């Protein structure tokens, strides 16, 4: 059966979920980390390490869900390492982040060598499109439970940051370290915890890539998704729910290029493939103002100071 122009819409819908999920996890992780006043640029490395760990554990244990958990733990370890290094005096979190990015990818490539060939068990999918007779729509709505978990995490994280004592502590550490210390809050410990939890989420994002979509472990698996997610957090103005929408938007935009070619719009595919980036630039330009700093930016972040 032929979908024609509907195919583009379906591809964008499906792509939003398929491509957007890893962005969602990484950007939620980064959102939490930045709320506490740290930037973790190493999430690209965390993502790749998570992808490798998830694939390897799934292969050896036969359980992809155990793979997801271990990917999260690997990400947590990398996040903890990053924030532990940053807790020393005069250590720049951006420089450490870049080092962690290279360390994470390098370590994943080194340890991941034996896992390029074998095929690991895949994460199961949930048929949300069972009501539909259109096979294309059914395929697009075949989603992974991780996406639903991501939505729940976004809602819960947003609620906790604004409505709980825990969220208040994280935000105080991110807004003013001096105020936090005056309140007797352990700033370094809060940041280490937040970065480690952020790393956990990013690691899960990586395992989605290797265990669900595109379902493969190779050294070319991540084409910068981890770094892009860091930019998405700024785009989302440090709000977990906005991270969800922005990730979906990005996923959909990334699906546009290939799907237009499939219906015969054959020219200009480099431009169509660049749409997510053009879109980000456009939103940044429209929403920025010379009279104020970014709305919602935690004041302790080295970029906004």
């Amino acid at each position, binding site marked *: 059966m032929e979908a024609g122009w509907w195919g583009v819409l379906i591809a964008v819908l499906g792509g939003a979920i*398929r491509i957007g999920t890893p962005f969602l996890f990484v950007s939620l992780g980064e959102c939490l980390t930045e709320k506490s006043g740290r930037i973790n640029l190493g999430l690209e490395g965390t993502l790749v390490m998570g992808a490798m760990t998830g694939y390897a554990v799934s292969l050896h244990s036969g359980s992809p869900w155990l793979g997801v958990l271990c990917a999260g733990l690997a990400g947590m370890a990398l996040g903890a390492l990053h924030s532990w290094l940053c807790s020393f005096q005069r250590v720049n979190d951006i420089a450490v982040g870049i080092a962690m990015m290279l360390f994470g990818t390098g370590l994943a490539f080194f340890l991941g060598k034996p896992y390029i*060939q074998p095929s690991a068990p895949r994460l199961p999918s949930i048929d949300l499109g069972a009501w539909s007779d259109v096979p*294309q729509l059914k395929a697009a709505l075949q989603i992974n439970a991780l996406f639903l978990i991501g939505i729940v995490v976004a809602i819960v994280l947003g609620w906790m940051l604004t409505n709980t004592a825990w969220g208040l502590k994280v935000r105080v550490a991110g807004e003013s370290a001096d105020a936090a210390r005056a309140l007797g809050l352990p700033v370094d410990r809060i940041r280490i915890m937040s970065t480690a939890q952020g790393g956990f989420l990013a690691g899960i994002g990586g395992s989605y890539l290797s265990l669900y979509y*595109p379902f493969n472990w190779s050294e*070319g*698996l991540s084409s910068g998704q981890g770094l892009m997610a860091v930019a998405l957090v700024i785009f989302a103005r440090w709000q977990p729910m906005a991270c969800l929408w922005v990730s979906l938007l990005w996923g959909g935009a990334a699906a546009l290029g290939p799907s237009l*070619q499939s219906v015969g719009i*054959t020219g*200009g595919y480099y431009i169509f*493939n660049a749409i997510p980036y053009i879109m980000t630039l456009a939103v940044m330009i429209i929403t920025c103002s010379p009279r104020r700093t970014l709305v919602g930016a935690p004041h302790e972040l080295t970029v906004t100071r």
Partner: protein
Amino acid sequence: MSESYKLTRRQVLKRSAAVGALGMLGSLDWVGQAWGASDKVKMGFIFVGPRDDYGYNQAHFEGKAAVTKLDWVKAFDEEKVPETIEIQKTMESMIKLDGAQVLFPTSFGYFDPHILKIAPHYPTIQFLHCGGLYQDGKHPKNVGSYFGYIDESQYISGIVAGGMSKSGKLGFVAAKPISQVLRNINNYTLGARSIKPNTTVHVIFTGDWSLPVREAEATNSLVDQGIDVVTCHVDSPKVVMTTCEKRDIYCTGYHCNQSKLAPKGYLTGAEWNWAKVYMDYAEMIRKGQQIPHLVRGGLKEGIVRVSDYNQVVTEAVRKQADAAKDKFMSGEMVVYKGPIKDNTGRVVIAAGKEHVQTDIWLESMDWLVEGVIGSTKS
């Protein structure tokens, strides 16, 4: 006064250091040649990507593995060497430290300027590049190229794909519109249309050689358009094959055999057989023969091959594919025989005219044949 004196001393130091380094270089050269003189044939292989990528690099690595089994050959390799100054360093270290007599830098971009720059410094070492870029008289004497006509295998895959397709619509996920890729697309299309003239081939260009997420997305979009057989020309076909299997459609492979990745849907595939090429070269070097500057060949010469057909491929389709294969093997097959139109309706090969496989004209292909839905314009 003292200023200028300091400066001169520095210059003297610099120069003496340079002379010393040159001397070292010279002596290392000598060591390298002395090692090369031992009785084993020493072959160095260099890959641009990981050697187990189910793709281009794995195909070459399988060739290397085959020569390694010969007890009179010592083969070594390095993977993931970028097409930058890195490749020059790798080549030099293989010559000086491992004593390589012959180097196989397998990636297209290694040739110009890297091989052309290093080769004149080592006239006794052979530099054999995969890609067919060597030109007589223009390039150093110790350089050569080899390449296979894998488009012949793609023609056979096209027949199988066209024969097994129910919708008459095939898909092709391609990296970039360069001539080798276009030739594969055109051969695939011509193969399919040789048995079912109404078949169309939808092409999606991803824009680069390795973009797993976009390749998966492209495959999904093709399936959504009712396409039921997909093939590809990207560095690693793994993602395309597994996505086809998940969407429950057929696929045909590229570079090497991917039937393990899609046991239900992998119909057949176009594979390299570099083992044959590398064994021949090793033999020539052992016997001290003159190495030809250009080695090319297709199915007939055994440089490319076709994966075994999947059991779902029907008897009738097998017969049609085998008939074409026999014609390639006997050398009478001419794929580009006029009249052939491109997909904008322009006649590119007039009736009665034909371009045989070795025709250099085919290597500058920049058009897509009638029946392809896609454009070479970026």
